[in-house]
C-alpha cells in the first residue's frame, strides 16, 4: 500500500514535469504577450522595457529553469495581466468552480442512480424505455448548446432564473461559497444543471448496465433463494456490487466536470477557473495558463489516486499491488 502510494507520487511528479515542458515550450511559440499587454501606441523602447520586465528577453531554457526553480518553492510565476502570483489568481477562482462541479455531481448522482436502478430492474417497462431514450438524448446534446437553450427558456423567455454571473457568497469554513443561500443557489442552478446533464445520462446508463449484468449472477439468485426481501437483495447485495464501478466513474467524472466547467463557465459568465483559463489563453497570459494546467493535472492525479484507494476499500478482492501503479 505504501509502496503503491509512493510509486504513484513519483509518477505524478514525472507527469507534472512532462506537462510543464510541453506546455511551456508550446506556449512560448505562439504570439507575443507584450503586443497585447502594452498600449498599442507604445514605442519600441517601452515594449522592450515590458519584455524585460516580464523576463521574456531571456532564452526559452533559461525562462523554463527560472519557472522550475520558482515551482519548487511553490511560486508558478506572476500573471502578466493581473501582475500577481498566478497561483493566487487561480486559487481565488477555485471555490466557484468546485462548488459548481460539486452541485452538478450531486444532481447527477441523486437522480441518476435511482433512475438507472429502475431501468435495470424493469428493462421492458415503458418508463424504463423512456428513461433510456432520454439518456441517449442527454448523451447527444452538446453541453454548450444546452446551456444556451436553458438560458433561452428559463432566463429570457420565462425570466425565472438569472443566467449570468455568480450570486452573493457567504463565508463557509473559510471559503467564499454561494450555494448555501437561496439567492446564490438561484444563480448556480442553471449552470449546474447544464454541467450535470451529460453525467446524469452516463450514470443512468452505467447503473442500468451494471444492474442487468449483476442480476443474472448466482449470488443474487442465492440471496433470493434464501428468501430475503426484495429490498434487501437490491439495497444491500446488488447495490454494494454495482457501487464499485460507479464509484470509479463518479470519481473520475468529477475531474472531467471540473475540466468541462470551462465551457459552462464561459456561457454563464461564472467567475471560476475555467473562464479564467479561456480568458488567459486569449490574452496570452502564459503563467496563468501554465499554472492552471499544473493545478488541474495535480488535482486529476489526486482524484485518480483517491479513486484507486477507495476501490480497494470497497472491493476486498482488489489488491493495490496488482493495480497498475
Amino acid at each position, binding site marked *: 500500500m505504501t509502496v503503491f502510494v509512493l510509486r504513484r507520487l513519483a509518477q505524478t511528479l514525472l507527469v507534472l514535469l512532462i506537462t510543464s515542458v510541453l506546455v511551456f515550450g508550446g506556449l512560448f511559440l505562439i504570439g507575443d504577450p507584450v503586443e497585447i499587454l502594452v498600449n498599442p501606441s507604445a514605442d519600441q523602447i517601452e515594449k522592450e522595457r515590458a519584455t524585460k520586465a516580464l523576463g521574456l528577453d531571456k532564452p526559452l531554457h533559461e525562462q523554463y529553469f527560472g519557472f522550475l526553480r520558482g515551482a519548487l518553492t511553490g511560486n508558478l510565476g506572476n500573471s502578466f495581466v493581473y501582475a500577481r502570483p498566478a497561483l493566487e489568481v487561480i486559487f481565488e477562482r477555485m471555490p466557484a468552480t468546485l462548488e459548481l462541479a460539486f452541485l452538478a455531481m450531486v444532481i447527477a448522482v441523486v437522480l441518476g442512480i435511482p433512475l438507472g436502478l429502475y431501468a435495470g430492474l424493469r428493462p421492458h417497462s415503458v418508463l424504463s424505455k423512456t428513461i433510456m431514450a432520454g439518456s*441517449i438524448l442527454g448523451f447527444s446534446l452538446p453541453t*454548450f*448548446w444546452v446551456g*444556451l*437553450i436553458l438560458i433561452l427558456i428559463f432566463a429570457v423567455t420565462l425570466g425565472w432564473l438569472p443566467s449570468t454571473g455568480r450570486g452573493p457568497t457567504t463565508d463557509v469554513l473559510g471559503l467564499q461559497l454561494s450555494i448555501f443561500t437561496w439567492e446564490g443557489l438561484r444563480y448556480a442552478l442553471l449552470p449546474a444543471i447544464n454541467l450535470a446533464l451529460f453525467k446524469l445520462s452516463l450514470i443512468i446508463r452505467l447503473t442500468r448496465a451494471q444492474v442487468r449484468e449483476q442480476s443474472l449472477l448466482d449470488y443474487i439468485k442465492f440471496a433470493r433463494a434464501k428468501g430475503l426481501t426484495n429490498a434487501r437483495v437490491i439495497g444491500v447485495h446488488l447495490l454494494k456490487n454495482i457501487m464499485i464501478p460507479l464509484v470509479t466513474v463518479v470519481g473520475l467524472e468529477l475531474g*472531467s466536470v471540473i475540466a468541462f466547467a*470551462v465551457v459552462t463557465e464561459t456561457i454563464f459568465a461564472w467567475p471560476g477557473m475555467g473562464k479564467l483559463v479561456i480568458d488567459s489563453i*486569449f490574452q496570452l497570459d502564459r503563467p496563468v495558463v501554465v499554472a492552471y494546467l499544473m493545478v488541474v493535472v495535480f488535482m486529476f492525479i489526486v482524484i485518480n489516486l483517491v479513486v484507486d484507494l477507495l476501490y480497494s476499500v470497497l472491493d476486498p478482492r482488489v489488491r493495490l499491488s496488482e493495480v*497498475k501503479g
Partner: protein
Amino acid sequence: MSAIVAAAPAVETPWQRFRRQFAESRLALLGLALLVVVIAIALFAPWIAPQNPYDLAKLDLLDARLPPGAQAADGMTYWLGTDGQGRDMLSAILYGLRVSLYVGVASGVIALTLGAVIGVLAAYLGGRFEQIIMRIVDIQLGFPAILVALILLAVLGKGVDKIIIALVTVQWAYYARTARSAAVVERSKEYIEAARALGLSAWRIVLRHLLPNALPPLIVVGTVQVAHAIALEATLSFLGLGLPPTEPSLGLLIANGYEVLMSGKYWISVYPGVALLVTILAINLVGDQLRDVLNPRLSR
C-alpha cells in the same frame, strides 16, 4: 437463443444475422435513416442550399438577423432566418454540417487507424513496448479530452488541419486500448499460432490476421468517438479555439448567435444546434445498437 436459431431458415450468414439483429431495434433503424439523410445533405449541400454562404457578393447586410420566414429583397424566403451578416441560416447550416461531419469523420478514421495499429502491435509484441504504450494510454485517458484539446489548440492555433490534429491526439488512445484488449484475447488463439508456425512476418500477422478479428469492438468505439469528435469540435469552435470564421462549422454558427440570444433572436443559435443534435443523436442510436449486436457478453 437456441429457439431463434432453430427457427431461422437454413444457415444464416454472419452478415445476415448481423442485419437481422440490428433491425430488431426500431430506434436504431430510425437512427440509421437519419444518419443517411444527414450524410446525404452534407455531401450534396452545394446543390441543395438556396444560397452559397461563402459567396460574400450574395450577402446583403440589410438582411441581417431577419426572423425565420422573412423575405429577401430578391424574393427568396429565409426559412430559418438570417445571421448577423445577412446569411441565409438554412444554407449556412447545410454547409456547416459538411464541415462538422468532415472534421469528425476524418479525425475518427485517422485516430482509428493509428490507434488500432499501435494497440494491436503492442498486444502482438508484448513486453517493454506494450508496457510503455499502455502506460501512455492510461495517463492520457486520465485527462478529459476537452482539456487536452484545449491546450493543443491554444498552442497550434485555428484551422481545419489543426483541429483534426487535436482530435486525433485525444482519440487515438481509446482505439489503442480497445484494439490491444481485443488482440490480447486473439493472440493466444490457435490460428495465430498457426500463422506463426507458417513463418509469416509480424506485419502480416498483425495486419491480416489480428486486426480483422479485433475489428468489431473498434467499430463500436469508432461510432461513439465520431459523435464525440463532432461535439468536441463544435464546443471548441464555440469557445473560439477551433475553426476559423472562414469555415463556419455548426459550433461557430451557434457561437455567432450567442451574443444576440439575450435579445430573443433565438434562431441563429437554435437551428444549427438542432442540426448538430440530430447528427450526434443519429450516430449514437446506431452505435448503441451496434454495441448490443456486436457484444458477445450479452447472451442473445
